[in-house]
């Protein structure tokens, strides 16, 4: 048997395995509190239709019990942190003596914000994440201390702002002034970092549905962030998750809030355009 034939055999085996595994995400539907319909799978956005046909929420890759926890706010531990953030929302802080509510009204007024972030912010002249906007408010509108990028106060507040957009489709803009940042994020997504030389795509585009040791690989969608993880029993910010992933390739990670991770969040967010906002979701 020539090496070529052997190689072909291995490639073919890999193709067959991964094709078979596409059936692996469960066939199930998510309705939160019996009233919010969540789109957990839909046609891939045009910009990635050559990579996958369908985009799927990580919810479809988790076990029955974990999925059930997200379907009811009384069972979703992430909602405790949303309640905490609701108090903070209504409490004045900083030299200006203002609360979030003083300018924005009820937290429910923020519906529609989460789905379009990260986005290019004209007044800032850059692509910004929700976290960056929150800290801009705190520093420049409230005269308050900035929060740590992935700290508890920050992740709780992003959970509150996500929660009021649950069920709305992710709709991150990739063109116009955001395009160069989006391209940078795409480059990062396909770069094989670290000593294990793994890109995001190796696991989350080429192998979703497959097991890597005890982990059931998902598409790595971020529509569910921040996410309550049973593993560490707290809310996890998306860029903290990015950091963990890059670390696990035996690479030098990027810092949460760095230009590289902002670009990556924009790009990965856009890969989930059409899925519903789910945060705070529940994962393992």
């Amino acid at each position, binding site marked *: 048997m020539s090496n070529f034939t052997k190689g072909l055999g291995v490639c073919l085996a890999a193709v067959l395995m991964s094709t078979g595994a596409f059936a692996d995400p469960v066939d199930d539907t998510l309705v939160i509190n019996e009233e919010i319909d969540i789109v957990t799978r839909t046609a891939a956005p045009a910009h990635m239709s050559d990579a996958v046909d369908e985009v799927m929420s990580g919810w479809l890759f988790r076990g029955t019990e974990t999925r059930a926890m997200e379907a009811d706010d009384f069972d979703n531990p992430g909602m405790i942190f949303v309640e905490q953030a609701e108090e903070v929302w209504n409490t004045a802080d900083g030299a200006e003596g203002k609360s979030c509510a003083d300018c924005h009204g009820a937290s429910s007024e923020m519906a529609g914000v989460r789905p379009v972030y990260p986005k290019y912010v004209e007044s800032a002249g850059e692509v910004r994440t929700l976290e960056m906007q929150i800290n801009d408010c705190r520093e420049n509108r409230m005269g308050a201390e900035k929060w740590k990028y992935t700290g508890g106060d920050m992740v709780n507040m992003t959970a509150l702002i996500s929660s009021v957009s649950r069920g709305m489709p992710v709709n991150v803009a990739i063109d116009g002034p955001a395009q160069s940042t989006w391209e940078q994020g795409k480059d990062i997504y396909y770069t094989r970092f670290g000593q294990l030389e793994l890109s995001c795509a190796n696991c989350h585009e080429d192998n979703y549905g497959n097991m890597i040791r005890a982990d059931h690989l998902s598409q790595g969608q971020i529509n569910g962030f921040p996410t309550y993880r049973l593993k560490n029993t707290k809310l996890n910010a998306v860029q903290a998750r990015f950091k963990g992933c890059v670390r696990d390739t035996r690479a*030098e990670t990027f810092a949460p809030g760095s230009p590289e991770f902002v670009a990556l969040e924009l790009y990965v967010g856009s890969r989930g355009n059409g899925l519903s906002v789910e945060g705070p979701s529940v994962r393992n």
Partner: protein
Amino acid sequence: MKVSVFALVASVGFAAAAHAADVIPGDVAYDDYGAVEQSLTGTPGNPEEGAKIVGSKKLGNCIACHQISALPDVPWQGEIGPMLDGAGDRWTEAELRGIVANAKMMFEGTMMPAFYKDSGYIRPGKAYTGKAADDTLGPILAAQQIEDVVAYLATLKE
């Protein structure tokens, strides 16, 4: 060249002889197909050690991606790469050595990490700390560990 010089040094009896005789990662000779004929150490691999390395999360962790029926006690065998049952029938020892050392030489673009390589990385880290690698960065497995894994894989016959 370097190998024979090291071997000479070793034979004269200087310290760390066993390691000094190893083929260093940058000197591994891959043939046109990505196989490596020459042992990396000159010491035959120990298949029992190899099985431990293959199954251990802290060493090779091959099982993270590949299934091996002969290791039923190792839980959570992955499904990323091909099953390794019968690998010893399908591949020669030289081919196995090449695949384990750096599979990209045989399969361009493969997801499989190179286990005996110490340069050419993008943002290499210091193991799993997330921090930058320092000048102690070496291959993921030592030369003799590669030989042990190869010896074990060669025992996997249908």
